[in-house]
């Protein structure tokens, strides 16, 4: 736990929080403005608003956002003597990798929290929708947060291996593009093996878009969470193995 607590201290005063706040708010704004400009009312209330902001968010901004967060979290380690200090210390590679992934995942989860809050605010303030969004969106948000974890681990691993800030982010973008293709083909099962596609599927849960059936079942949610857990385990182990075998720059 010490390594995780240390990592959370490092994101104090970090730019990461700006990303966590601005990215979901911007996406909800886009969804809202699109609806207002088209002159329609959200016909199906909360569902329409959710569809227009969260599904779009899941197509690529979310993945790219996680990529940026992972690069921000690792950037400090690639600076000055931090890499040598971290790798020259007694903390095992597995704990370093897991702690970093935990922070990126937590930031992604916070982003989902902001998303949910922004949808509620837009629904109430702009469209004066009745009541609160159905509880299913809280469950879907939890599934999205879980599906973000393997993406966070993968992006954290890429940003660990690459000193470049932009290269891993570009890979997140490409991954998201590949995921869209997979999901458009309706290859749901194949999508579970690609973290970028899994998170896309999670954001489409219960909306009937792409490969989704439109029905929110506990089994469907559980299968995404299960795939996320499996991918997380594999990716963390692989990252730790790689980190252990990587030489410091000469």
């Amino acid at each position: 736990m010490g390594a995780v607590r240390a990592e959370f201290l490092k994101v104090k005063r970090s730019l990461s929080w700006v990303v966590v706040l601005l990215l979901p708010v911007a996406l909800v704004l886009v969804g809202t403005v699109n609806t207002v400009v088209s002159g329609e009312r959200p016909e199906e209330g909360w569902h329409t608003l959710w569809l227009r902001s969260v599904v779009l968010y899941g197509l690529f901004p979310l993945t790219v956002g996680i990529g940026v967060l992972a690069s921000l979290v690792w950037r400090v380690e690639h600076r000055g003597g931090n890499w040598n200090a971290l790798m020259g210390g007694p903390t095992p590679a597995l704990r370093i990798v897991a702690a970093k992934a935990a922070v990126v995942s937590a930031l992604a989860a916070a982003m989902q929290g902001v998303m949910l809050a922004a949808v509620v605010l837009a629904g109430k303030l702009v469209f004066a929708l009745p009541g609160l969004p159905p509880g299913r969106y809280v469950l879907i948000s939890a599934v999205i947060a879980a599906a973000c974890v393997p993406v966070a681990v993968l992006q954290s691993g890429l940003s660990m291996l690459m000193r470049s800030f932009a290269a891993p982010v570009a890979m997140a973008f490409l991954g998201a593009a590949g995921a869209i293709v997979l999901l458009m083909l309706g290859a749901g099962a194949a999508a579970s093996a690609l973290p970028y596609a899994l998170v896309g599927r999670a954001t489409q849960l219960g909306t009937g878009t792409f490969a989704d059936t439109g029905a929110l079942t506990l089994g469907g949610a559980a299968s995404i969470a299960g795939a996320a857990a499996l991918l997380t385990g594999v990716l963390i182990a692989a990252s730790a193995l790689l980190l252990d075998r990587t030489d410091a720059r000469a």
Partner: protein
Amino acid sequence: MPDIVTTDRLAKRYREHPVVHDLDLRIPEGCVYGFLGPNGSGKSTTMKMLLGLVRPSSGEIRIGGRPMRRSTRRELLGGIGSLIETPPGYGHLTGRENMRLVQRLLGLGDGQVARAVRTVRLQDHLDKKVRAYSLGMKQRLGIAMALAREPRLLILDEPTNGLDPAGIEEIRGLLRRLAGDGVTVMVSSHLLGEIDRTATVLGILGGGRLLFQGTRAELFARSAPDVLIDTPDPAYAHSLLSGGFESRLDGTSVRLAGLDDRATAKAVAHLVGAGVDVHGVRRGERSLEDVFMDLTGGGGL
């Protein structure tokens, strides 16, 4: 004294390019080991291998008698503090927050952190962001971060690099205090003067090879100072001697290199036999710098 660090034919090659050759280091416990060599002689690479940051191409490293391998590395690193190349530190955090990071990461007590901070005399600057620190303060913070775990061995790569004379003196004093507390310190420099008076054992690296390893006294003994012969006609004396000796003109004297006492007597007898007046025969002053220059072929100083 047992050796806390030993290496056996330690070598590193990058592709086919050798950086470190067959290094047999012996670092006695409790000493300040001055690791000297010109820039690019392989000091940093060697230190990184000692810390497991870089995998050796061949050879073996033992720390406290135990082999340093991937499997034992993290455990052994618990007893080693290090500062390699640029000092660590998170610029957006204060000094205190940086120390707290180390404390959390390694599960250390408040006392250990406070002692480390006091040792480097940084206690009055902890609330400043590290970004605003001077280089000397960053170095001291880096050393405090390495010291907090109370290591038996401290490996410092060029800790005085870029510091002003006061900062260099501060680090020297720190190294002496640490050695006094029983910590073994391995410290590298490309400038002999920076660690000359602090180090008790010296290892001199040139072109990736260990040119010398031993105490200062042993280093001096290894090459006798030049013999200077004062004479009214040094040019003539030089012409007489240059056949049998390594001789050159040095002002009003003839300077002969690599002479032991018998050879000195022979040279003097030769001059006197040829009717040259000899006014004085003395050994030249020889600084550690000269010895270092000889060993490294004058590179990089």
